[in-house]
């Protein structure tokens, strides 16, 4: 098959990163040609400042040397500026006439420094600060001249100023605004920055507007004059007042530009075969000048060039770090805030530390730090994740290493805890056990701690404490997880949501197919992704996908609950908790016949038979002649009811019948985790509906529906969802909510966790406010349940599962 041709214009960091990503995905798809206007291979432009400061050499900052291009069979044209694109014929032309045909064209033309339109701007010694050429010009000038003036007190300007000062020049920074780096810093931190830069010998003229640049007889700049009439000497003027995307080439080819080459979320321009990345693009109206967003763009662009088609670039929150040795400065996001935001500020004037966090709706939206920036990336991650920080708010400003203390109400710090103190109440794990496991088994991550000790593996309220124990045991070797967008498991980089989306959109119908399509890194997955995948597949394609018993745990394979002695317990369904003398007689007979040692009434109003041997299960089921209660599955468990208006003097609704109807309607339903429902006939709520995943409570005028309750490890009271009038509405709303949960929850999330993640408002929008969507959801649920089979029915039993083992 003939390879496609990819031509890239521009040889900078964004473009080459895109190629690297592309080569990782599809090394053989394209013949690649690269045009670079500079004479160098791809170098790290952001490291020009250390070069200027004399801390690094040019060769230190080369990212991809010529060998790299050769190794990947990339045709590299250096020193060749592309000047024309013939879109109909898909050919690009360089200044020197070099031409290249393309199937896909990638524009990565970058940006140019903005030069102030003032008289004298063309004088010798007036430059921007963009590339190696500019850097060399500055180094050269520093050797010959005395006075340097930097126009622009932004990131680049200050780095240039610092470099030139280090090279012995007398440097003045001229800035139009009242404080430095106004796009990255607030006034307080900028003042601290200015003070430390002044200590390094830099001078500052703030709120000065440049009138003109004055030249000498040799045509070289000699002074700078301001609007206020003042003038200072200048042998070198560096303009660092911003960048302009290089769009001339694209515009000349008729590609839509608006302060940058306009691209969509796939980095595609208005010409479908032309993509653009880097500082030259305008994405959702924003042009980015920092490297992190450009790399994000590159990753997305590569994905589409590789015809994967699933990545989206949705814009970036940017962060800034000033690369001036000895000065720690960091800012990210919206740090100035507005009337909707709140600030948390730590200002240690004497200690030279300033930190400000900006929050909106309990989420971090911006951060400025000066003097102590070690938590910058952590904040940045939280800004991007939109993590709710309400619980850690008071601790936030003191950094990540401080957080462990919050695990148990901040009462004890892990380091001082005695070994015998219990850390995880759910699983009864004490500190000594965790420390021992960390040391002896060489654990490094929270997941490993969970796996080996079970600490923090259940309700998770001790997670902070576990992390702190890890940190205090491992010391510097501990690197906490920084992102909430966690991959589903170790077998993939994709999140639950991405996997489900792919299953739905790509109509993946089996576990092997899904793993192959989604580039699973392990051949057969693991114990945590296989059951999840199995559920996601069944949920998305209920009638197309064949259940994979090998991806289920023993309970769901055996359709009974395994007990500590290896026997099983059997719970037949009793719809709504209603039974009959006949059923009871059968249960009694079965108990006698199979020598069932314990018969117990469950909390869910059914009868549990304990101690059934595995090989007896099919016979027990047959003799009971009752359907499976699904008491073992990630599925609908019981629908608990009170006796309701039929018998009760207080009952206002027939809760028993409603419960029976719900249980019948949703029987045999698989869910991300177990699902419990209850129906009470009056607000006295004898069925305890308020701690169920779905609770229905009868009131005079109808029914109230509550969702997200949980009586388990951590009791959660269900939240009010809606009040409805009729029996059918109860079924519809309940079903719609359940289906939403089935479709959106991560495997093993109970409803409470799911609602916590997406918010009750989200649920209300989909189930209550959008009637059409509700009906769709309910329809999808009913469709999924159509023809669902009773696993205890003789015809559905997999005899291999229950055959006695022969060795």
């Amino acid at each position, binding site marked *: 098959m003939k390879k496609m041709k990819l031509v890239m214009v521009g040889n900078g960091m964004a473009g080459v990163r895109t190629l690297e990503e592309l080569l990782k995905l599809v090394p053989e798809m394209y013949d690649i040609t690269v045009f670079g206007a500079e004479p160098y291979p791809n170098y790290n432009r952001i490291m020009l400042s250390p070069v200027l400061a004399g801390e690094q050499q040019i060769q230190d900052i080369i990212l991809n040397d010529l060998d790299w291009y050769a190794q990947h069979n990339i045709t590299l044209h250096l020193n060749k500026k592309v000047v024309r694109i013939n879109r109909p014929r898909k050919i690009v032309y360089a200044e020197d006439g070099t031409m290249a045909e393309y199937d896909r064209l990638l524009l990565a033309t970058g940006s140019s420094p903005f030069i102030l339109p003032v008289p004298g701007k063309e004088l010798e010694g007036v430059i921007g600060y963009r590339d190696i050429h500019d850097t060399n010009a500055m180094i050269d000038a520093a050797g010959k001249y005395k006075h340097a003036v930097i126009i622009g007190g932004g990131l680049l300007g200050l780095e240039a100023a610092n470099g030139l000062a280090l090279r012995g020049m007398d440097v003045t920074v001229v800035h139009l605004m009242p404080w430095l780096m106004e796009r990255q810093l607030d006034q307080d931190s900028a003042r601290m920055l200015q003070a430390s830069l002044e200590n390094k010998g830099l001078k500052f003229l703030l709120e000065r507007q440049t009138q003109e640049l004055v030249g000498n007889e040799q045509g070289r700049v000699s002074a700078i004059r301001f609007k206020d009439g003042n003038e200072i000497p200048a042998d070198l003027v560096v303009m660092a007042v911003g960048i302009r995307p290089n769009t001339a080439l694209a515009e000349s080819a008729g590609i839509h530009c608006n302060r940058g080459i306009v691209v969509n979320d796939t980095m595609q321009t208005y010409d479908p075969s032309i993509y653009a990345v880097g500082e030259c693009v305008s994405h959702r109206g924003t042009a980015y000048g920092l490297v992190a967003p450009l790399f994000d763009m590159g990753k997305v662009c590569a994905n589409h060039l590789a015809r994967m088609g699933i990545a989206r670039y949705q814009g970036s929150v940017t962060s800034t770090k000033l690369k001036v040795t000895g000065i720690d400065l960091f800012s990210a996001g919206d740090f100035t805030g507005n009337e909707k935001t*709140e*600030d*948390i*500020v*730590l*200002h*240690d*004037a*004497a*200690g030279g*530390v300033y930190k400000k966090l900006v929050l909106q709706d309990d989420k971090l939206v911006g951060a400025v730090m000066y003097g*102590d920036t070690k938590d910058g990336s952590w904040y940045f991650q939280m800004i991007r994740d939109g993590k709710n920080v309400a619980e850690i*708010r*008071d*601790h936030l*400003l*003191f*950094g990540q290493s*401080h957080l462990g*203390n919050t695990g148990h109400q*901040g*009462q*004890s*710090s892990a*380091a*001082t805890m005695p070994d015998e103190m219990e850390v995880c109440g759910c699983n009864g794990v004490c500190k000594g056990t965790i420390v021992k496991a960390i040391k002896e088994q060489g654990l490094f991550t929270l997941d490993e701690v969970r796996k080996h000790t079970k600490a923090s593996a259940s309700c998770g309220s001790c997670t902070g404490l576990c992390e702190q124990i890890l940190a*205090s045991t491992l010391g510097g070797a501990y690197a906490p997880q920084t992102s909430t967008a966690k991959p589903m498991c170790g077998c993939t980089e994709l999140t639950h949501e991405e996997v489900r989306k792919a299953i739905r959109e790509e109509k993946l119908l089996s576990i092997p197919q899904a793993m192959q399509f989604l580039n699973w890194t392990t051949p057969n997955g693991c114990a945590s992704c296989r059951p999840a995948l199995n559920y996601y597949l069944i949920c998305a394609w209920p009638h197309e996908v064949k259940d994979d018993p090998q991806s289920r745990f023993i309970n769901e394979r055996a359709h009974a609950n395994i007990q500590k002695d290896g026997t099983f317990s059997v719970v037949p369904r009793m719809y709504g908790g209603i039974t009959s003398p006949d059923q009871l007689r059968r249960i009694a007979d079965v108990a006698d016949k199979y020598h069932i040692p314990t018969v117990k009434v469950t909390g869910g109003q059914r009868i549990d038979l304990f101690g059934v041997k595995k090989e007896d299960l099919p016979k027990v089921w047959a003799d009971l002649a009752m359907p499976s209660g699904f008491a073992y599955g990630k599925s609908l468990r019981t629908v608990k009811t009170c006796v309701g208006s039929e018998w009760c003097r207080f009952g206002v609704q027939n809760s028993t019948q409603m419960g029976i109807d719900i249980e019948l309607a949703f029987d045999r339903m698989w869910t991300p985790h177990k699902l419990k429902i209850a129906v009470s006939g009056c607000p006295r709520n004898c069925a305890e509906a308020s701690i169920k995943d779905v609770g229905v409570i009868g009131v005079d005028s109808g029914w109230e529906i509550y969702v997200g309750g949980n009586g388990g490890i951590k009791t959660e009271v269900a939240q009010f969802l809606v009040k409805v009038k009729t029996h059918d509405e109860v079924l519809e709303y309940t079903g719609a909510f359940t289906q939403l949960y089935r479709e959106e929850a991560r495997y093993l999330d109970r409803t409470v966790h799911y609602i916590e993640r997406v918010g009750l408002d989200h649920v209300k929008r989909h189930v209550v406010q959008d009637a059409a969507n509700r009906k769709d959801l309910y329809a999808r649920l009913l469709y999924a349940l159509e023809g669902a089979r009773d696993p205890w029915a003789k015809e559905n039993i997999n005899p291999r599962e229950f055959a006695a083992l022969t060795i």
Partner: protein
Amino acid sequence: MSKETPTKDTRSTCCYCGVGCGIIIESDGTRITGVRGDPDHPANFGRLCSKGSTLHLTARDEMRALYPELRTVRGEERQRVSWDGALDAVAEKFASVIREHGPDAVGFYVSGQLLTEDYYVFNKLAKGLIGTNNVDTNSRLCMSSAVAGYKATLGADAPPGCYEDIDFAKCIFIAGSNTAYAHPIVFRRIEDARKKNPDLKLIVADPRCTDTASAADLHLAILPGTDVALFNAMLHVMLREGWTDTDYIAAHTEGLAQLKATVRDYTPQHVAEICGIAAEDIVQAACWFAQGPTLSLYCQGLNQSTQGTQKNAALINLHLATGQIGKPGAAPLSLTGQPNAMGGREVGGLANLLSGHRDLDNPAHRAEVAALWGVPDVPAQPGKTAVEMFEAVRRGEIRALWIACTNPAQSMPDLNMIKEALDAAELVVVQEAFRNTDTVAYADVLLPATTWGEKEGTVTNSERCISRVRSAVPVPGEARHDWQIVVDFAQRLALRLGKRNVLNYANTEEIFNEHRATTQGRDLDIGGLSYALLESAGPQQWPLLQGEMQGRKRLYGDGMFPTSSGKARFANTVYIPVAEDTDARYSLHLNTGRLRDQWHGMSRTGGVGRLFSHVEEPLLSMHGNDMKRRGLDEGDMVKVSSRRGQLNVRVSASDEMRAGQVFLPMHWGSQFMSGLGANALTNSAFDPQSKQPELKHAAVQVEKLNLPWEMVAMRSGDALKRMARLQPLLANFDFAALGLYGHDEELVVLRVAHAAAVPDDTLVQIDAILGLDDEKKMMNYRDARRGISKRALMEDGRLLGVRLTGETAARDWLKEIIAQGADVQALRPWLLAPLSAPPAGQVQRGRIVCNCLDVSEQEILQEAKNGLDVSGIQAKLKCGTKCGSCLPELKRLATVQQGVTA
């Protein structure tokens, strides 16, 4: 202290409790530089407790009233005036009130902390010169039930035993006294005696399991106010079992028959129910008591009660019934709370007494005193006792009130009534050494008095032992001696009243000699005592008759009592419950009492940082079950209310009391907390005989209080000055507690809880007072929406001050690192973090148990956990090896820990 400065030693006494320890004051001639116990003093033989051993730290001018001050309009600030100006004004007002409304329209409320000579002249001024018996003292709140109890049974106000009896006793019966806290040196002697005599039985009757009670062989944890029932039941058992001394009863007592009939009903089974203790414990106590020799030590638990006299008498009944009196190791010995309550009683400085234990209602006694004083007569009409006096002031019957050396605006019961009274008075004169007492705030005239270390005279301690008090340093500012102020005033008043001035004294010895003359022929005859003898032979017990060279250790050894018949009288004591019973609205019994390291209203101890390290703020102790029922957690804010007032404090779980009872220390007043202190709640109902109010019991309710806004502000350096400036702010908060902390480096600590965020200008004011207002030096944290604002001041790596508002989790360890004064630069990033424990594994010290050597509870528990016993812990940490005040607690901590490991 540089070595060149010559140290001068001055022998004196401790000015705190009634144990009356001898103390050697070290000074450089102008400043007191140290104290040590006087090894030759018979009360303590060189020992001092945690309070006494820090006395030199209280000799600070910052705490003192140094100049006379006067205001002519209520509500305005007093202005500094000359002594002449102040005394003339007071004399003018007193004279005009006396002329217009009679002598009973003025009153004097003085103090058991005055020296005998001061006391004498006050008494003579009122009763002799002015002609009113309206002179009462804070001893009314302290010892008057003991006085009445002694007089009712033994015939005179004379404690018959002595401290040496501790060494001879085989049974020590402590009732209503937390001796380990309130009289530590006596308790040291008990510990020594028990070491020497392992068979010595210690019985403690106290509703609380105090450190004293926890050391006992038998703790009778009786319900509040049921002492009489207990004592009667013990007598019942003694009579039933034939454990009484029938010969002694027959020979030396009268009145048993009637009492017998009364106690017949007090069977152990019945009383077990009244007292809430086991019947067999009553029998056991009676058995040990009867075997003897038995020394009873008792204090406010018996005295501060509407049944105080009965309680005292019922206990003395036991001594009479078993003949446990007048022999070595056998006596009822009341412990006095103040250094010179006894001296005050001797000079008759109470509204119903006359000089030399004479009685006001005895015409012969009145005539004797009038003759001694050279006045025509002394008034017969009894004067107003403490509670009555303030009620009379409130009613306008008493118009001019002179308060000396005491702080009724904090120490009286039902303080809201006292406040009304002080507001109603036409003139309030306060003669006081300390600037910041609650009462000084009400003074129209403030007369600066000298105090411990500056004044001289004599005091009498609990065992009738008279010691010389001597001055070590010159008088500060313009302060004058108390007796001098009275003499200066008397001269002016006599002139204005046209009376002969009978108060002309040049020195205390003249006063002492006149007082001596009034005792002659009385039970307390000290005809043989003189300053010279005290100088040459040291402290002496009374009586000491003319010609004798040594006082009498014990009284009544001959079975002769100062009654008309010469026999002791059994009092017919009947149990009556506390004045205020609990009910549904006020369902808890409030008990008040002392802490180990504070004394009275803290005007003196409140100026020493380390005295706050045992207990730092006013805490309501409550049983854990009572807390659970109210949904209270440790440290929660609660509102304690009684029928008379309310108080906001933090609650702390304690198993010292049984459920249904709460305990509040009496020390904190409005200078150290928001609110008036424990006595805002207490009951002014008083004993009909002794007129002593029931400060020990009130019915209260405890409700959880939601004061979500919290602040803790701390600053080292100039702690006393800053504290004085913070004091006026306390009333602005729903709850505030102000105190000091630290062993060497002292810091002031302000804790606040309030219903809502306080206005910013209050914070600005506090920051300014604490020197936390220089923005260039401050470390600042703020989260406006959470109402959190925190700031810290660091200099040269040391943390000097912190103000935490909205969130105060780090308060305790920050306090400790400020006090340590160590370099904490490494902690800088964490200083304002919401950490309840210090970062990086430093150990938090927690409450300090041993004050002298600065050893904390945590450190002791750690060593106990390591397996060390008490002596091992002492060897390692040195705790409890100096003053010993912490020994009972140390033992308890060591045992508790052993209990855990066992």
